[in-house]
């Protein structure tokens, strides 16, 4: 695998994905039932997970995976069902943006956002994620 070539592809595509996720979150902030936007964020998190895993960027794939799982549950319910759900997604987006910036600047795998992962694994996660922001 030509790592440099795939790193470039990752940086291009991840940057596009994160911008698209940001746009969708702005809509979801106003309308937590916006199903097209929930689908979009779910799909793009899935894609971030796959790219991260392919390049050994475990921090990216682990965080995108957790957020994808959360979105999968919201998708089934037809809405982001807690008041702070969008805040969780914004916090995840911010963390993924930081990880992509680290890859861009150093060419190295970024470190995990352990605090966010731990908060996402907790049933009380929205409140805990909120406190991290």
């Amino acid at each position, binding site marked *: 695998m030509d790592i440099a070539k795939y790193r470039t*592809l990752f940086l*291009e*595509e991840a940057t596009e994905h994160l911008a698209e996720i940001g746009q969708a979150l702005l809509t979801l902030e106003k309308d937590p039932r916006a199903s097209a936007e929930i689908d979009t964020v779910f799909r793009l998190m899935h894609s971030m997970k*796959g790219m991260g895993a*392919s390049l050994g960027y475990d921090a990216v794939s682990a965080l995108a995976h957790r957020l994808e*799982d959360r979105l999968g549950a919201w998708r089934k319910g037809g809405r982001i069902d807690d008041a702070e759900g969008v805040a969780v997604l914004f916090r995840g987006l911010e963390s993924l943006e930081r990880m992509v910036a680290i890859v861009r600047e150093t060419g190295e795998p970024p470190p995990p956002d352990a605090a966010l992962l731990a908060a996402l694994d907790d049933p009380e996660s929205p409140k805990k994620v909120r406190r991290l922001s």
Partner: protein
Amino acid sequence: MTVRVLVADDARFMRQLIRDIIEPEGFEVVGEAADGRAAVEEFSRLQPDIVTMDIVMPKRSGIDAVKEILALDPTAKVAMVSALGQESLVTEALQAGASDYIVKPFKPDAVIETLRKLAEKAP
């Protein structure tokens, strides 16, 4: 004879990765599709020997695209591309008529073996 492959995935990264894995092994990527609807259209137009089909795609999911492709050609050979945690979707795709599946992140040998097996399989 060269085996002609259509690669359907919404991520350019993944389409390129599959291409780079299979082309040195003698497969020819005859087309790419970035969503489920385009996958069906490109299948009709190109008549590939094998399709690799991502599950999570915009406009039409990979599973719906498989169903449409098989309605057009019941002998079509489609390998689903799945991630860990998508076992139930893979099962649904296989029940809908997909021939096999490959798992992300890709292990090149496993991808090639799966496509070779499909290429040799009678229609």
